[in-house]
């Protein structure tokens, strides 16, 4: 299953980057970035997965003594938890700037933004 998730994650990263690089509408670029973001998270979680083991939560089923042989790697999960939350922050910031650009210049098409072109 980790192979499937990893392959899907890599595919999503590539598709998201393709969408971000070829679209001209700023909103579409941001949406593509979130798809790439999901792909990165999938790859990271898939790296921590191990066959035949359970989630890193100790309870009646997995006691503290046998945790080492029964649970999967918890570190990538903690990392991805952070990444998802920061991902929302980054997306919100991008959307805010896109909205501000629309408010000031009335455009969403970045090929029409010629201020910084040379």
């Amino acid at each position, binding site marked *: *299953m*980790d192979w*499937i*998730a990893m*392959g*899907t994650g890599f*595919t*999503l990263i590539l*598709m*998201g980057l*393709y*969408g971000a690089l*070829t*679209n001209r*509408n700023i*909103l*579409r670029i*941001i*949406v*593509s970035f*979130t*798809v790439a*973001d*999901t792909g990165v*998270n*999938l790859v990271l*979680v*898939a790296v*921590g*997965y191990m*066959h*035949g*083991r*359970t*989630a*890193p*939560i100790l309870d009646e089923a997995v006691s503290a003594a046998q945790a080492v042989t029964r649970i*999967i790697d918890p570190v990538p*999960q903690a990392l*991805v*938890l952070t990444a*998802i*939350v920061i*991902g*929302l922050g980054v*997306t*919100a910031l991008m*959307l*805010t700037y*896109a*909205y501000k650009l*629309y408010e000031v210049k*009335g*455009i*969403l*098409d970045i090929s*029409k933004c010629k201020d910084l072109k040379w």
Partner: protein
Amino acid sequence: MNTVMFAISVLLAVAMIGAAFITILAKRPATAMLAAGLVSLFASVLFLFMAAPDVAMTEAAIGSGLTTFLFFFVLGRVRGGRS
């Protein structure tokens, strides 16, 4: 890992890639945003299969829920994303 879970995860992977295609190819921005939310939602189910319930919860609540709503808030403000 049994066959049913394997089959479901293959199905989820195909659905995610399909939704990602819709995201980058759709004509209307609203469709693209919904499809991106769908990618996140399927990803959260896949996280659950990969024994990561914490990540699955976060992805479902934040990646799939709040992000989509933020997009729609902004989309409503810019009058449908046409310029």
